[in-house]
């Protein structure tokens, strides 16, 4: 069973998508801030990290940087989550080797695609951007 660490300070997002990820068959761990995110990475050694960019106690970018420098976790795929459409965030995420980028509001399908992509071999960058676009059939 693949393990997902969901780092998100909004408890409703964490709960809703936590339930969703479990229903998809993942083992889910959560963290609410930068510090506990790092200790969770050490403890549960996740297969993929979903990382909100705005976090209390240091932003998601800082967390990703620290994860990159951790022994044994340097290659852990990271998917960033943000509600902001500020220019430059995606670029920064790419620099940090992110394998996905989800902009709120995103849905379960986009989340599932992003995780699948992250867990598949090769590191194809696929930004899951959805400016409230309708899904094509």
């Amino acid at each position, binding site marked *: 069973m693949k393990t997902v660490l969901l780092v998100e300070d909004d408890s409703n*997002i964490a709960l809703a998508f936590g339930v969703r990820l479990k229903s998809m068959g993942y083992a889910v761990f959560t963290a609410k801030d930068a510090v506990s995110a790092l200790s969770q990475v050490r403890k549960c050694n996740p297969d993929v990290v979903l990382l909100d960019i705005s976090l209390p106690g240091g932003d998601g970018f800082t967390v990703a940087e620290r994860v990159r420098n951790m022994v044994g976790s340097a290659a852990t795929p990271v998917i960033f989550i943000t509600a902001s459409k500020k220019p430059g965030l995606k670029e920064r995420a790419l620099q940090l080797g992110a394998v996905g980028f989800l902009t709120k509001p995103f849905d379960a399908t986009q989340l599932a695609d992003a995780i699948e992509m992250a867990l598949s071999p090769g590191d194809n960058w696929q930004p899951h951007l959805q400016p409230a676009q309708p899904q094509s059939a």
Partner: protein
Amino acid sequence: MNAAAPAQSFAGRQALRVLIIDDEPVDRERCVRFIKQIPGVDSNVIGVETIAEADQQLRLGRFDCVITDYHLSDETGLDFAAKHHDDGDPPIILLTGNGSETVVLEALRTGVADYLIKSSLTANGLQRAIQNAVEKSDLRDSVRARNETIARANQTLQKRSNEIQRFYHTVSHELKTPLTAAREFISLVVDGVAGDINDQQREFLVHAVDCCDQLAMHFNDLVETARFETGKLQLQRRPGRIEKVVLRAVFSVSAQANDRGVTLLHHLPPELPDVYMDDGRILQVVANLLTNAIKFTEPGGRIELTVTRADADHVQVSVQDSGCGIEPEHLDHIFERLYQVPRAEEHATGGGLGLGLCIAKEIVELHGNRLQVTSKRGQGSTFYFSVPVAHPHLPNPEETFQ
């Protein structure tokens, strides 16, 4: 008794402070005398022999004007002028022995206010030169002060604009996070993750999800409007298929058209070239035009979306409805931000924030074209725009990040 004489002044001042740099005592004294003779002003003249002393004087106090000889023992009058031509420095008048062309040209280039030839110096000539120089310098000062005021005001506006942009971001962030969670909780139930639900429950919840999507779209409109206003929207253009985008837009509004009882048709020619566009943005434009068309078309009406090759370089997309049409007095305003055309049937606005068309127009313009409309009252409206054909040799800087 005579009426009181008007208060006299010279170049707008009651007191005049002049520095004279000349190592010839006779010449210097003559200048001092000429200046003392200026009527209506209290003159304070200081004479020095060298540039070094002059520099010292300028450090100590303010002067309205400096008069300097060209030939001096330590440096030339031009060297002095070159050092003192910043904002706030007094105007400088150069005295030359013979008015050699090289010196005069150099003097004007250095920014001296005026030059006078020593051999033909008169009280009148000197006074006039001082007056002109001082008045010109005052004028420059006041222009500079005004420019500074404008620059400050501009800065304030820029700051305000950034604050508004930040505010939009915060609002949007604060709204989107709970919305994302709400949508997901509903979706979990719809998908049966929380147990079985009946068909009607599912139908209602699907509507709730649609509502969430609508809200999300409105938030995006808000943030995007702020971004247009501050010029921060950037397109991610690359060659793409307009058919794909158009069909996605049609798909996204087909339920809406059905609900309203409006027929939605699309016509796509068999062979279309790739166009150079931000597909997400063009999708937004087409979806917006279709949504508007549905909103303003009566049940039983008809909407036709047509794509044509306009010319060698453009593909045109048009959305024609059989709706109520737009009154001429609204036609000029419909692309304005926050403008809403009243809906005739119920004298209420068509809903929405009044941002959609304005955003659509901006997006089309960022693609180098115009969003246009023709409409006749009672005979429907046609909105149309072009997208440039992608030429394979065009550089495509945005592609690197996709």
